[in-house]
C-alpha cells in the first residue's frame, strides 16, 4: 500500500493505494500520526484505489476517529462497495463523526460550506 499526503482546502488528505491489511496498517498509522496535531479538526482518507481492507486497517481508522471525536471528524472519499460494507459492519457509517464522500469534489464542497 502506498500513502500520498496532501491537503484539500487545508484539511489533511491521505491518498491510499493498494490493499490495507495486518502487514501494512502500521504505515497508515504512522502517516496519520504525521498529519494530525492537537489542533487538527478533520482528516480525509481517499479510498478510491483501495480494493481491500481488513481489521488491521479498520482498527487504525477507528483509533483515528476516537482521537478526532472531541473536536472534529474523519472522512472517507470514494470507498468501493465492499469496503463500504465493512465500514458499515464495524459501525462507522452511523458514527456522527464519520463522513463518506462520493468523490473529492463532494468533500471539497462540504469543507467549503463548513468554512462558511
Amino acid at each position: 500500500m502506498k500513502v500520498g499526503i496532501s491537503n484539500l482546502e487545508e484539511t489533511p488528505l491521505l491518498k491510499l493505494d493498494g490493499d490495507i491489511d495486518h502487514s501494512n496498517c502500521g504505515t497508515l498509522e504512522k502517516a496519520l500520526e504525521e498529519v494530525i496535531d492537537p489542533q487538527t479538526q478533520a482528516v480525509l482518507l481517499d479510498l478510491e484505489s483501495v480494493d481491500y481492507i481488513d481489521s488491521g486497517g479498520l482498527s487504525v481508522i477507528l483509533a483515528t476517529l476516537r482521537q478526532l471525536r472531541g473536536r472534529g471528524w474523519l472522512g472517507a472519499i470514494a470507498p468501493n462497495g465492499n469496503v463500504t460494507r465493512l465500514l458499515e459492519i464495524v459501525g462507522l457509517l452511523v458514527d456522527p463523526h464519520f463522513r463518506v464522500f462520493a468523490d473529492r469534489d463532494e468533500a471539497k464542497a462540504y469543507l467549503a460550506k463548513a468554512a462558511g
Partner: protein
Amino acid sequence: MIASAAHREFEKVFRARADTSELAAIRRFVEQIALEVALDVERIFDLKVAVSEACANALEHAGCESGWLEVCARCEGHRLTFIITDRGLFKPPSAERRECPNRGMGLPLMVALMDEVSFARTPGGGTQVSLSVFLDKDATLSL
C-alpha cells in the same frame, strides 16, 4: 423444489510462511478457489477478509511455532470451507493489546461475513478455525 447438482468436490492446501507479509498470497489463493466455484465478487471479498482475519489471529495469538501456516480449502456438496489450523498455544492478551481497544474485530468480522464459523481444539493443542460459505444458497435452503 429440486436442489441443484452439487459442486465438484476437492481439497487444496496452501502453505505459507508464518508472517503477515504472506497474507496477500493467502488472499490470492482464496480468490483462485472462490473463482473455481463461481462465487460473485462480494462473496469472494467476504472470504478474503474472513480467511485473512483467521490467519492474522493464528499468527498473532498462536505464534505459529512451526514457522508455517496452512490454509486448507475444501469443497463438499453445497459448501466451500476454508480451514486454518495452527499448532501454537493460545496466548492471553498482552498489556499492549489492552491499550488498543479497537483490536479484536477479527472474530466479529468472520461471523458477520461467513455463513458458518466454527472453532475446534486440535489433538495437538492448537486451534482450528473453519469458515464456510454455502454455494447455491437457495438450493441448499430448499433441501
